[in-house]
């Protein structure tokens, strides 16, 4: 079956044909960009939202400048889809390499498929030690408005650990970036994986994150949306080994008429795994924040314990928060919960602070910071904590 493609879809379809990705092109020809009829895009109809899709980005040289500098970090850059390895030698226990083409075994989702077909080069980071150094990967979208595709595959070997920070940034143009990250955690491996979108307010940012979590592994994942006119991160996590634990967290800071969407799909496939999902959004002006979460507990995944929460804070009357926290459970000996709240700042709290001589605006900022504390508190690296909390502070001051 083929559908009528619109102008933007034609560009993507042509790009797929040019990249010789015949089967994906065929698939795309029959489904096009996701619409709200696709449940996971229920509130982010990309067919409607994506416009002005440019041509595939051309090569740009590294700017050599990083979005931020964390003490004791190893920095890498992907500029317009091309991996730039700068001067420094990687720390011991880390192997950096690249491969041609996109991510291996991409998710079936059409945006992930587009990414894998159109990505020219994938960055590989293999960690086989308990790494003190933070690895930072900046993905920059430089030059004129264009379509960007890139991929990072991270492998943390058995009994190893690392902190990875991915930053999305670039020139102030109407870019469309379709990025992918895959993180595989070996047995008893530990990782902190932070993704921060501070792209220009014209950029459209799409990211697909895939986690494979093996036995005894421990993951802390954090997504922050603080840029882009349209930001959508979709996260797929698979628990493949027992006694693993993961904390998924996210923060959407959305203003003006921007649109931010975090959609997660966590699959507890084996017994004795636990996870928490803790997401927050703060919206003002005419902004829209969307959280869709799904926890799947497979048939034999007994003793799963999962708790999902989304809390939304609305700072102005025209903002919108749309939430769908979903549970799909096929095992009986599990504890699964989800919660969702939405509301504005409590007048009583504001009054309390103001009665102590704090200006209304400042009192508001204090309450918002308190609301966000849960997201930043688990970050133990002070430098990183300051940088991330600083992003929120800057956003509040705007």
């Amino acid at each position, binding site marked *: 079956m083929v559908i009528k493609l619109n102008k933007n879809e034609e560009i993507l379809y042509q790009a797929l044909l040019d990249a010789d990705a015949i089967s994906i092109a065929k698939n795309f020809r029959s489904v096009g960009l996701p619409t709200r009829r696709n449940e996971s895009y229920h509130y982010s109809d990309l067919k409607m939202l994506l416009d002005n899709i440019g041509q595939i980005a051309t090569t740009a040289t590294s700017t050599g400048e990083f979005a931020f500098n964390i003490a004791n970090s190893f920095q890498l850059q992907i500029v317009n889809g091309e991996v730039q390895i700068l001067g420094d030698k990687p720390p011991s226990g880390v192997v950096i390499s690249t491969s041609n083409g996109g991510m291996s075994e991409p998710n079936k989702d059409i945006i992930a498929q587009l990414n894998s077909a159109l990505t020219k080069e994938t960055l590989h980071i293999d960690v086989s030690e308990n790494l003190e150094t933070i690895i930072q990967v900046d993905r920059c979208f430089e030059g004129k408005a264009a379509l960007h595709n890139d991929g990072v595959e991270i492998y943390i070997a058995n009994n190893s650990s690392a902190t990875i920070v991915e930053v999305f940034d670039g020139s102030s143009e109407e870019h469309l970036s379709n990025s992918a990250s895959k993180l595989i955690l070996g047995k008893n491996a530990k990782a902190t994986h932070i993704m921060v979108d501070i792209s220009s307010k014209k950029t459209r940012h799409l990211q697909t994150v895939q986690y494979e979590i093996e036995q005894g592994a421990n993951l802390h994942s954090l997504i922050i949306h603080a840029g882009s006119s349209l930001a959508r991160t979709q996260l797929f996590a698979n628990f493949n080994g027992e006694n693993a634990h993961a904390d998924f967290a996210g923060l959407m800071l959305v203003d003006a008429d921007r649109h931010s969407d975090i959609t997660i799909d966590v699959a507890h496939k084996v017994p004795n795994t636990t996870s928490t999902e803790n997401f927050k959004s703060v919206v003002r002006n005419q902004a829209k924040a969307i959280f869709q979460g799904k926890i799947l507990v497979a048939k034999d995944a007994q003793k799963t314990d999962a708790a999902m929460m989304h809390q939304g804070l609305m700072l102005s009357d025209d903002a919108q928060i749309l939430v769908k926290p979903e549970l799909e459970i096929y095992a*009986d000996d599990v504890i699964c919960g989800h919660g969702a709240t939405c*509301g504005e700042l409590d007048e009583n709290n504001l009054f309390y602070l103001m009665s102590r001589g704090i200006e209304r605006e400042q009192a508001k900022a204090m309450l918002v910071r308190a609301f966000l504390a849960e997201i930043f508190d688990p970050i133990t690296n002070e430098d990183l904590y300051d940088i991330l909390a600083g992003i929120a502070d800057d956003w509040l001051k705007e």
Partner: protein
Amino acid sequence: MPAVKETIDQVKEIDLEKYKYGFETDIKSDKAPKGLSEDIVRFISAKKDEPEWMLEWRLDAYKRWLTMDEPDWAKLDYPKIDFNDIYFYSAPKSTPGPKSLDEVDPDLLETYKKLGIPLSEQAVLAGVEGAKIAVDAVFDSVSVVTTFREELAKSGIIFCSISEAIKEHPDLIKKYLGSVVPVTDNYYSTLNCAVFTDGSFVYIPKGVRCPMELSTYFRINEKNTGQFERTLIIAEEDTYVSYLEGCTAPMRDENQLHAAVVELVALENAEIKYSTVQNWYPGNKEGVGGIYNFVTKRGDCRGDNSKISWTQVETGSAITWKYPSCILRGDGSRGEFYSIAISNGYQQIDSGTKMIHLGKNTSSKVIAKGIAAGFSDNTYRGLISAHKKAKNARNFTQCDSLLIGDKCGAHTIPYIEAKNSSVIFEHEATTSKISDEQMFYCQQRGLNEEEAVALIVNGFVRDVLQHLPMEFMVETQKLINISLEGSVG
């Protein structure tokens, strides 16, 4: 606790009969030819002796239906329904329309007696002394009797079958039918608009508090028939009405279709309480047979400070697709939804509610309890939405699922949409199984395994049970036990 002893006796009793409403009444009936076409729509309308405008309304709906696709978003898996293999109209020959009690075929009366439905106006429900309950009995496609009509008419209340209402109160029908669930609303409701055969109509005039419970009892009897009922309740300003609905069907190997539409209209300060005990035949142990239940129920809180409350106990049907909803249009209006959905065997339930906040200071509360046992799938799907003008909208939702056994599934899919900043929405949901600690605690105090499960389950659904009218409480507790029977361990 004496209640537990009773429960266990009920379990034992039920054990022998399983689905005890599964008998068939041998009665001659008058049927339309199989299948669906414009002629069938005309046939039904003619049988009902309907005015021309009603026929036009049906035909428009039919034309519209032909252009629609069957929805597939629900978490339900069933073979495609062949609409040409269904009788869309079937009525007992002897009683082709509602009559007074002494004119009704004795076989039918016997059927309702067996089902425990008091059709005689003197009869009272066991254990509920002095409580009167008016019943509209719908058998396959027609309403066979409506009791207590005179007494209700004294207070100006109209309680009759919808077919009669179309003829006798066309102004009310024209004004309200399809005003809550539009003709084009969804696949099954549009189908219902074209072929609905009977149902109940209730009109409560201004300032009247309905003196008794109103009730409709739906029975599917004939083979290969679909039941398409239509209920319309209008509560004028400053009124109160409590309405109960029950449903059963014989045990058959085939799947029968039931696609109903229920519309409620509550004007200023009116309150409608709508309770359902849905106990259609759920199919046998292997999942053969059972009713496909595709129902559109919606209440419109049109007036300020009006209130609509849905309480449902869903234990029957092979497939349940049902989302009783409230449109909270009037300022200060209130919607409530209390639900117990129990699935066992190969039953599939996809049910929940929609609370649409449009007016200022509206509030809603959702309590949904799902219990899945056997090989069943039980999904809660709900929408809570507050539009721009719905200042200070308030919602509290709690949906809990309980799993009994490791072959079943429980799912929760809530949609929460806040479109202005003054809303306060709280949603919580949990899924768990009966814990070993709970079982141990009960068993250690001398209850056996079955008793312990019954006690814990009854505790789990208590929040909902207490919102059911007294008359339904007893039956519901029995139903909970039927549905869960055999699922221990």
